[in-house]
């Protein structure tokens, strides 16, 4: 080390326009929720950022009623070309307020500013732009000449990409003529409430978008509400199953984006330096808080040692620390609870006999941090190879033949994403065919675009977000 020394380069915290108190957004206005207020903290410092009013079950009903009224009275009746203009306005406003949103996101979530600034916020804006254009072209989407919206959508999103997941949910819902009630994650409600301001600035009709901060019980109440027609959830497989169970037998349309345990497969002819970059991006992007993270590295045995050496060196250069520092690669784990979960799984890796290597990077004394960790000698039966860790922890397994790589890669109830690294085109296409996963990245990893459908096989959920395919989730087809 010592080759790269960086001076601190902190982004200004003032850009976030942080307020001491935030409130739920219902029927076009910020209202006092009747739930217990929660304090959202900065996971990098454990300081309280703001107090956030939360919804109670009765507020859920009020919000759904507002959404229904907006749906019946305005939004479903509006020509698609007019809806489109609202969505374009929202997209532009996100761009215009992007610095504020990025800093706020990093403060509340703990992700590095370079990721919120260069990835989360621009991609969120891109989703509104993309879907804005669909609003008046739905007849061309392949679901018949005049596909209808479903009604009121109840949406529950996770804490790993708070604004981006909001965009993935709200943009297609509005473009197709639905109105929404969205519950952001308990630990990351702030950017959703600034998004609510953006809805006001865009003069979106009241009730079209409603945001209800709260905990799991509010999510359950929203999902189970009798007047919700569509449920969209992104989060853990465990909660996804509970939601599927909860609304079984109702006419609600459901889409789920759940967990993953993606295999990132590296063949002996792969360009190693590029592969190392891809592996690092695959598992350490967003502190590994990514459902499609490449958390199982499958390396061809003949190059395993060489690759691991390069990988450890590269990982040791990652800078961990202040999320607002523009040179930070790895920010904070989102919550104490998540940090405990990561630690528990890492201990199971030790106990089950995997070889742990941890980056020697300095770790701040305050805040929730976890140094990048790589396990080698991992066997398929180990918990760290089977369970989603959702943190900066990579499990490395080896294989000898392409068939063995496929078998090991597919040996999971999940099926969200996968990676392939090889110079051989025919092998890429063969592997892409064999892998049971909704997204396959070849010689790259963690690429997202509103025009490309995203979603999983098996227990990684059903339905897609993005592209023409993603519109189906919000149409009565």
């Amino acid at each position: 080390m010592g080759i790269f020394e960086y001076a601190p380069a902190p982004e200004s915290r003032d850009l976030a326009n942080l307020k001491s108190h935030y409130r739920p957004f219902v029927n076009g206005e910020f209202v006092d929720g009747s739930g217990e207020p929660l304090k959202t903290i900065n996971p990098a410092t454990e300081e309280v950022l703001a107090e956030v009013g939360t919804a109670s079950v009765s507020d859920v009903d009020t919000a759904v009623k507002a959404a229904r009224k907006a749906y019946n009275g305005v939004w479903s009746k509006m020509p698609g070309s007019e809806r489109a203009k609202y969505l374009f306005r929202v997209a532009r406003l996100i761009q215009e307020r992007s610095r504020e949103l990025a800093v706020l996101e990093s403060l509340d979530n703990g992700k590095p500013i370079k990721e919120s600034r260069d990835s989360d916020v621009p991609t969120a804006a891109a989703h509104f732009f993309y879907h804005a254009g669909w609003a008046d072209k739905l007849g061309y989407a392949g679901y018949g000449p005049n596909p209808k919206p479903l009604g009121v959508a109840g949406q529950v999103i996770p804490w790993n990409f708070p604004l981006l997941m909001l965009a993935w949910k709200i943009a297609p819902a509005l473009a197709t003529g639905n109105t929404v009630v969205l519950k952001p994650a308990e630990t990351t409600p702030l950017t959703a409430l600034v998004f609510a301001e953006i809805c006001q600035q865009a003069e979106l009709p009241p009730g079209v978008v409603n945001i209800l901060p709260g905990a799991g019980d509010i999510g359950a109440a929203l999902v189970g509400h009798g007047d919700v027609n569509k449920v969209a959830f992104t989060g853990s497989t465990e909660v996804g199953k509970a939601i599927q169970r909860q609304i079984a037998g109702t006419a609600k349309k459901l889409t789920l984006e759940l967990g993953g345990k993606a295999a990132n497969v590296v063949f002996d002819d792969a360009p190693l330096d590029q592969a190392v970059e891809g592996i690092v991006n695959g598992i350490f992007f967003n502190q590994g808080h990514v459902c499609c993270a490449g958390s199982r590295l499958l390396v061809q045995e003949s190059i395993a040692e060489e690759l691991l050496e390069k990988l450890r060196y590269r990982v040791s250069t990652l800078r961990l620390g202040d999320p607002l520092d523009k040179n930070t690669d790895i920010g904070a784990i989102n919550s104490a609870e998540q940090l405990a979960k990561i630690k528990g799984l890492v201990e199971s890796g030790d106990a089950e006999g995997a070889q742990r290597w941890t980056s020697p990077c300095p770790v701040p004394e305050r805040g929730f941090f976890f140094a990048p960790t790589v396990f080698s000698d991992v066997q398929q039966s180990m918990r760290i190879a089977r369970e989603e860790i959702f943190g900066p922890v990579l499990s490395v397994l080896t294989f000898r033949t392409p068939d063995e790589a496929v078998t090991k890669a597919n040996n999971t109830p999940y099926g969200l994403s996968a990676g392939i690294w090889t110079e051989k085109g025919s092998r890429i296409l063969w592997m892409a065919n064999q892998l049971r996963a909704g997204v396959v990245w070849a010689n790259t990893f963690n690429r997202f675009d509103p025009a490309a459908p995203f979603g999983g096989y098996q227990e990684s959920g059903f339905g897609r977000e993005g592209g023409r395919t993603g519109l189906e989730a919000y149409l009565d087809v």
Partner: protein
Amino acid sequence: MSDRISVAKTYKLYIGGKFPRSESGRVYPVTDTKGKFLANASHASRKDVRDAVSAARKAFGGWSAATAYNRGQVLYRVAEMLEGRREQFVAEVSASEGVAAKKAQSLVDASIDRWVWYAGWTDKIATVLGAANPVAGPYFSFTVPEPTGVVGVLAPQESSLLGLVSVLAPVLATGSTAVVVSSADRPLPAITLSEVLATSDLPGGVANILTGRASELGSWLASHGDVNALDPTGAEPSARADLAREAAGTVKRVLTVPDTEPDWTADADISRLRRYLEAKTVWHPLGV
């Protein structure tokens, strides 16, 4: 000489390309709509369901990997065989559903035509539902539909052949494999269809047909860990919520179906095909 005694047929299950009796040894009487005894059908058990699912899983790799052209040919071949057995199907549909011969003929004709329609979709669905994604970056990104896997199908209770064909053919056309529970009281056309499938080029295990009660077997299919999707059409509407809850244990795709049996004579669309397909998006960098 007395009148000739006809050769009575013993009806069996269709699992993995073979015709076993139910492992349980159970049978139940099948009558026509006037109550006249027609035959005893095998009453499939939980073990039969498991065997059928494992046969369907085993067949999935080959069937899903077959070229779409080949799958289309195989399915069209089934339609040829259906046509060859047309008179038998007419008699069975007539007896099962209590409809006049003329009506039965038109139902059988519609069934054959529907099978042909789905056979023709195998090599077109990827063009219609797939995409080249215009992503903002130096990447080639495309999306292809892929079969979901093993599908559990509770066939319609009323429409013994046209309904059955309308729910089974789209599963097979996507490249998925099926475990079907036939109409409980009207199983004869399903049994004959299994004989057609067995003598066509359809690989064993791709379609498995069990006779028995959806009310009993549906639950085993819904909770089975190796079934990827469930069509609850033939379940009692009151039982569907329970099936959907059991299906949630493995995040199964559960079809939304109307409470009452739809009019199967109406033209089909691709919605059933779509429900048995996953979208796989593949990315690769562009560069020199």
